[in-house]
């Protein structure tokens, strides 16, 4: 449907409605297309007037659509009028209309009205993220940083997750402002990024950089850099945080792996209590290992080769460095078959310890456990991203811990396995927002999209205080 160019008379509207194939939804469709084409408000008004004349009342959904059009064009007085009408006509409004009203008012000089409305919303429901965002942006646009931060903290307390957009607006609007309180609040945002392992995107990163550099008397200087594998920042020579977990975190994580990943709701789903016990005694008797290998995963690296040959190559390559190896496999590897030759298996067992799980058991969880139990220096080899195991962990804190540990300990040595699959080598430094007081190091993404959680950005913003 094409909306008309200028306001129409009642008769003309009637004619249009008759020509339309579904007369009962005519107004809705018409208003939708007006919103799409961004028609002038007058046209919409003439439609409403026509409705009012015919029925003496305008239904709520039509009013909301009209409101959408007004908000889209920033017609504040109209928004005001619609609000007055709605307030009189209906006891309460629903979230859609509130979102629109708050958005409309917050972008005008009547932005305080948006705050009043936010209070009204709180009486009946938890305000949506967009409501909070509009209010926060309005407050910070008018340099009311204290108010903005109050709203922001309230939002976090309600478990409403802010978008990066809002976080960025804090940096943008408080540029060049003084105040210890404000600085503390801004640093809290950076720590929020750190705790939730969020990486800002490029434009956000620029906002952060400019905010630091605009601090009066702060003498901050930000530069973009890449950090090499050693984990030393080339700009300020500062050594980034180690990727190793603390002893406490290690034991915590192994406990959680046992509890959530291996046992889960039912130990029999991934293994059996008997098998788990056998595995645990096996590991305890032979600790510590240097490298734990996911035998089945590695055996599929080259599809042309026999599976046991693939595994043999990997084992002999890793055994050269005098490392203590543990290979996890399944019992079917022991059956002499076209893919698993008994002689080769025998030879491998001289070079490494083997543990064979039942054919219907999950071997990955064992791999994680054995690596964690062996301690800091131990790595594991698999091409698996371990997403499903991460998903078994019940809280996000442990999941982050898991990813951090995985980044530091998973290897796929390209030298031994020239496979299509590529994964960054085990990281020696931790990839999160970090500070030492007079320096900040912030990893950032090139694009806005979320990366896979096992990939981390390689680009950094280094900020130093002179």
């Amino acid at each position: 449907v094409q909306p008309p160019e200028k306001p129409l008379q009642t008769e003309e509207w009637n004619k249009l409605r008759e020509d339309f194939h579904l007369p009962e939804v005519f107004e809705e469709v018409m208003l939708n297309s007006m919103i799409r084409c961004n028609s002038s408000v007058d046209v919409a008004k003439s439609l409403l007037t026509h409705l009012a004349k015919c029925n003496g009342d305008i239904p709520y959904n039509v009013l909301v659509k009209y409101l959408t059009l007004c908000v889209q064009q920033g017609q504040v007085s109209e928004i005001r009028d619609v609000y007055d009408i709605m307030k009189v006509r209906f006891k309460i409004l629903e979230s859609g209309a509130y979102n629109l009203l708050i958005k409309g008012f917050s972008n005008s000089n009547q932005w305080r009205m948006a705050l009043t409305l936010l209070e009204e919303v709180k009486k009946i429901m938890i305000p949506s993220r967009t409501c909070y965002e509009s209010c926060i942006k309005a407050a910070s646009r008018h340099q009311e940083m204290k108010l903005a931060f109050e709203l922001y903290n309230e939002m976090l307390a309600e478990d409403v997750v802010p978008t990066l957009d809002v976080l960025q607006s804090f940096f943008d609007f408080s540029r060049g402002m003084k105040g210890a309180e404000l600085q503390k609040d801004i640093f809290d945002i950076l720590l929020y990024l750190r705790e939730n392992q969020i990486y800002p995107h490029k434009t956000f990163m620029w906002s952060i950089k400019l905010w630091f550099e605009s601090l009066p008397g702060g003498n901050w200087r930000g530069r973009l850099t890449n950090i090499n594998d050693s984990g030393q920042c080339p700009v300020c020579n500062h050594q980034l945080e180690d990727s190793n977990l603390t002893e406490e975190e290690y034991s915590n994580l192994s406990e959680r792996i046992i509890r959530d990943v291996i046992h889960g709701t039912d130990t029999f789903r991934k293994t059996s209590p008997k098998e788990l016990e056998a595995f645990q005694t096996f590991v305890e008797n032979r600790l510590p290992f240097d490298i734990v290998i996911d035998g089945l995963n590695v055996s599929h690296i080259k599809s042309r080769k026999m599976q046991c040959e693939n595994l043999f190559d990997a084992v002999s390559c890793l055994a050269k460095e005098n490392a203590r190896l543990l290979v996890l496999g399944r019992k079917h590897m022991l059956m002499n078959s076209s893919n698993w030759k008994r002689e080769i298996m025998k030879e491998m067992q001289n070079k490494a310890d083997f543990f064979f799980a039942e054919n219907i058991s999950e071997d990955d969880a064992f791999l994680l456990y054995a690596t964690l139990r062996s301690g800091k220096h131990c790595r594991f080899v698999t091409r698996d991203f371990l997403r499903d195991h991460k998903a078994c962990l019940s809280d996000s804190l442990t999941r982050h811990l898991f990813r951090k540990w995985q980044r530091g300990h998973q290897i796929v040595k390209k030298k031994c396995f020239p496979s299509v699959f590529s994964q960054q080598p085990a990281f020696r430094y931790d990839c999160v927002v970090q500070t030492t007081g007079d320096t900040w190091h912030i990893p950032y993404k090139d694009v806005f999209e979320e990366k896979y959680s096992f990939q981390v950005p390689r680009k950094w913003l280094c900020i130093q205080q002179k």
Partner: protein
Amino acid sequence: MQSANMLLRRIVRSSVLPFVAQHGMKKDLFPLNRTLSLSLWLKQDKSCEPSEKVDLDEWKKVMKSGLQEEVSETASEPKELSSLAAARETLEMWRLAGRAVPENISEEQLKAFMECPSKSAKKKYLKYLHLKELYKKNDKRKMDEKRERRLEAQDQASKTDETKKSPLVCLWSSTMNKAYNWRAAQSMIFGQPLVFDMSYEKEMSVREVTNAVRQIVMSESCNRRSVDPFHIHFCNLKDDSLYHREFIKNYREAWDKLLITVTDQCYTEIFPKDKLVYLTADSPKVMKTFDHDKIYIIGSMVDKSIKTGVSLARAKRLGLETAALPLEKYLLWSTGAKNLTLDQMMHILLTLKDTDDWKKALEFVPKRKYCGFVNKPVKELKKTLDLINTLKLGKGRGKVEKQFDKNYSKK
């Protein structure tokens, strides 16, 4: 702007209200009445000054003028609402805004709605209720139409007034039921047992349990109608569990008369372990033939969020033999999960029991899930496919050329 509004309001009020009062309107203005009065007033207004130009803000006047009385009422009302009432109001507003929200909602459903953990859960629940309501309405409409048609037909028949004499005795449903029950009773004594394992209540949401029960009710009825029914056992069914309550909701007073065995015991306590076979899609073993001496167990579980290995874990814990249907072997699988509904399982097992024909039995697998039947195992087909591909890609072309030369030279 404000003052202008106020002025407008005052003018409108003074011009409309006396008019309304003349017409003897009560305190609660019916919308209909209001419409009438307003449109009347508008018409008068129009006749006074025939203007070409549309007054764009007229709708505001209309909206406000009709509401003056209500304003004074709502203003005097206390604003505070209880959370339930507020939720009800919000739902009503959502409905007006055109969202998928049911028109009528019971207290119970409202509480369930408020207990939904997240916004998306709330939305889903409302949509579900909304659809349920629509189905109900449609069914009612169809029933009414049917009734009317029947009445018309009866009228016609009474007019013609001819009684048809049929040589066959009409088999009423009660007679049929007696026959079915007779068979079921025989199966209770001589039939092959089939176990439904009712121990998954903890793993399921309320809605999944209701779905599971409905599927079991369907399975039970198709079993009753079959030529040679199973002797059905509901094992691990605890009294006053959710399953139990749902069964009573479905069967009502027929629940106690069902010709099946219901017990809170485990199947391992009733039957010898070596005869039990637990059917689960996650089983590494594939069923080759239907064994008439074995007792098959079906886990009564609907898992909308795919929880793999739950029933396999049960079987492992009890040390039972497991089996999966040979879907891969006989069907070219296309999409969908390989776990079938309970009534489909029932149909398949009954067909196998009667005919031992896999092809016939697997016709009960939903058509959307597979592309067709396979007469060769898929592995062999894969080999053929690989061969075709190698030929296409020109690997081993020498061989093909030799073959070709041979054939050609013969000619």
